């Protein structure tokens, strides 16, 4: 599988699509910072609790899902997958390589989010001195686990709905999940335990909790729930991919 990971990593990170997505993502965060009214930034607010990081965090799953779907989708449309299979690579290895490379893309996008947010904060004078380092690090780690889990779901979509269809499906999944949790959030109180538990599985429901200056409630449970969804998606993806008839 290492051969595949190496080949896929080089192809993905050299692809114009990914570079363009990263640039666009960073550009949007900076642009958003420029148009934020200084009145919107409350006193004592720092970069990780500001509207800049919040908006960036909301955009991150969308950019990640579109980027991954386009890059993995190219394997199906170009026939790249045939070149892998006809030289004897196992389907599990191909899927595993996609998953690991997609994780790398997600991490790279998260780094872009953090760097762009900090850069914007410095450029536009948003405070960085009041950062609660412990809370920020824990929140970022839990958020990363949830994003990796989300990535595993997107890779599952890439194999279920091959080609560009997966882009549309991933986009719809991301947006509807976000809307559903926003609406549910208004219906259920945040101290409703069932609602809070369901929220732990979805990054779209978690984003608002991370844009605070304090450690979120039981972060280990959120990481466990979010991670378990990713594991479930990976198992489902491998089982489905192993049985799938390819062209």
């Amino acid at each position: 599988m290492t051969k595949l990971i190496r080949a896929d990593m080089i192809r993905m990170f050299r692809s114009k699509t990914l570079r363009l997505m990263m640039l666009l993502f960073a550009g949007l965060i900076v642009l958003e910072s420029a148009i934020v009214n200084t009145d919107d930034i409350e006193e004592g607010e720092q970069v990780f609790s500001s509207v800049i990081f919040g908006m960036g965090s909301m955009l991150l799953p969308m950019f990640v899902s579109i980027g991954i779907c386009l890059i993995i989708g190219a394997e199906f449309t170009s026939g790249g997958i045939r070149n892998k299979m006809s030289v004897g690579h196992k389907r599990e290895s191909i899927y595993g390589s996609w998953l690991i490379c997609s994780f790398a893309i997600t991490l790279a996008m998260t780094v872009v989010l953090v760097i762009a947010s900090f850069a914007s904060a410095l450029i536009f004078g948003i405070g960085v001195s009041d950062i609660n380092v412990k809370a920020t690090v824990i929140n970022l780690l839990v958020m990363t686990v949830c994003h990796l889990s989300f990535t595993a779901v997107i890779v599952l979509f890439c194999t279920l709905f091959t080609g560009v269809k997966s882009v549309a499906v991933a986009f719809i999944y991301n947006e509807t999940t976000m809307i559903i949790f926003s609406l549910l959030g208004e219906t259920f109180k945040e101290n409703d335990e069932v609602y809070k538990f369901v929220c732990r599985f979805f990054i779209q429901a978690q984003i608002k909790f991370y844009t605070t200056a304090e450690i979120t409630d039981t972060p280990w449970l959120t990481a466990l729930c979010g991670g378990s969804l990713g594991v479930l998606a990976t198992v489902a993806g491998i089982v489905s991919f192993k049985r799938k008839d390819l062209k």
Partner: protein
Amino acid sequence: MEYVLKTNGLCKQYKNFKALNRLTMNVPKGSIYGFVGRNGAGKTTLIRLICGLQFATEGSFELYGANSTSGKINDSRRKVGAVVETPSIFPDMTAEDNLKHQFRIIGVPSFEKVKDLLELVGLADTGKKKAKDFSLGMRQRLGIAIALCGDPDFLILDEPINGLDPQGIIEVRELILKLNREKNITVLISSHILDELSKLATHYGFIDKGTIVKELSAEELNDACRKCVTLTVSDTQKAVNALEDSGIASKAEYKILDGNRIDVYAQPNITQLVHALDKQGCELVTVKEHDETLEGFFISLVGGDSHD
């Protein structure tokens, strides 16, 4: 005879459509195996099964002695290079980058062979031109170059000349012949362009409705398609004596089919023939002339009805 690929009653069912129906075929080592059939006959389906892209509903195949149901099949696939339907290339990459990517997939650490491969397929001067700007023939040749990255012993080409211009067809044909003759690569080439296939193939498999209807060598096919006169006589031995003694046909120019029929490939003068047979006391019952082309032979096998 040593076989690279042997299939045993392969079946593939897509919902209500049976793409392969107990298909059994054998590809001899070192041959160029022409896989002939109409569109939708099951050619591409079989190639997909061999490459591991799809799974057989029933039956199995052996690739270099490894059964498709065993774990060793992936090792055997390392000896295979394939171009299935359209060439598998990344359009935003150059020819060189596409080959380097394939070398990484195979796990070859150096790219020394990239230049040789590009020269072999005539793409050495494409430089930074992206594959998306290549002509169809260039893409086809790049697809073949990618399939050759792992130094395969067995090359599978699915309709490699489809859509090519005459020059492109000649280039691909010469490349296939070169690979077979110089590198001793066994080639399985599927096509419905019979005329072109007849310039390449050493063996043929005719497929119709998912079943191999005839498998034969090029010599056998040539014999079947040669212009000849079939004589129905009372005694073939007497007829042979008449042909040889009168000098109408040498031993190489006739073939005894059964006790009463004999194919004569020389163009006999019928009056002379009748006299010679009469002299031997052999009765001539019927004379039938055959002039079958490869297309004619194919139609006679699969029938001339419209496509399903």
